[in-house]
């Protein structure tokens, strides 16, 4: 069960307070009337569904009622970042590997300084 940092409340909350609302950044076509049937179908139904880094829309339903985005790994379920509506993710499928490498280097550096891996609450 996820422990989710609400970017508005500023603290981690239990998954039970949130609802997932599908893929993030699905923008409604600017001019629906001049959108083809295929384009409209794509907007309504077609999704990335990646095995790996995924950007999702969630709402803090039992909380501040705000929608926000989560970048989450769909296999490890690790939440890589949360960001508010209108913001763009800094971690993406493209830069994930580099990001992980940097993070593990950080961890090793911390470990060598006698610090330990950060926990989910740290």
């Amino acid at each position, binding site marked *: 069960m996820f422990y989710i940092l609400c970017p*508005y*409340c*500023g*603290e981690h*909350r*239990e998954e*039970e*307070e949130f609802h997932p609302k599908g893929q993030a950044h699905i923008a409604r076509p600017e001019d629906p009337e001049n959108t083809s049937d295929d384009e409209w179908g794509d907007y309504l139904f077609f999704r990335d569904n990646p095995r790996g880094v995924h950007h999702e829309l969630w709402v803090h339903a*039992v*909380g*501040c*009622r*705000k929608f926000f985005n989560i970048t989450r790994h769909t296999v490890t379920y690790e939440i890589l970042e949360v960001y508010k509506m209108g913001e763009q993710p800094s971690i993406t499928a493209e830069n994930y590997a580099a990001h992980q490498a940097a993070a593990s280097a950080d961890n090793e550096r911390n470990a060598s300084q006698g610090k330990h891996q950060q926990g989910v609450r740290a």
Partner: protein
Amino acid sequence: MSNAQQFDTRPQGEIPVESPLAYSMQRSGTPKAKAGTKVTMRERPFLGQLTLRGGAIVLDEALREVLGLGLPGEPLGLVQDKAGERSIQWMSPDEWLLIVPGGEEFDVERRLREALGDAHFAISNVGGGQTVLELEGEAANEVLKKSVAYDVHPRHFPVGKGVTTVFAKATVILRRPSEERWELVVRRSFADYTYRWLLDAGEEFDIAVEN
């Protein structure tokens, strides 16, 4: 002006009034305190409750002007006046819950609307839709731990904090106005469920209800 309608829903004169728990207390009872009572529940009905929406800066200014009490400075903050009768709780980046003694809310709303002028804001009277339950006693924490997934440990939930969270299968606004007292702001239609749940969860601590 905001060009919204304000509506004073309080009747003049003596009109019978029923709190959301009137039926529940009658049906499920109000257990009296015993020697072993470690938690006490109390309803504070008929308070004035306003949902305030808008920008923090303008609302803060207006509230200071009208109530002499500004918005809490942080998310999840709860501030009260000296008497503890008026409180403002952060609900969302653009939403606060203002609780005042019953009857004050219409005047407060009117004055706030005046003070806010043309700003974009909203004020909704929600006093009929929710009631306040207080929990007190050494086992209050334990009863809450049975009921809410939110961490109520004093390190994590100091006085002056308030959150909206899951309560069993309902939702509550949970606040800590003082060291010894918790407040649950409960929606009217869920009040009976919440009450029955608390009686059940409090049974092992000989929960008492004061009314």
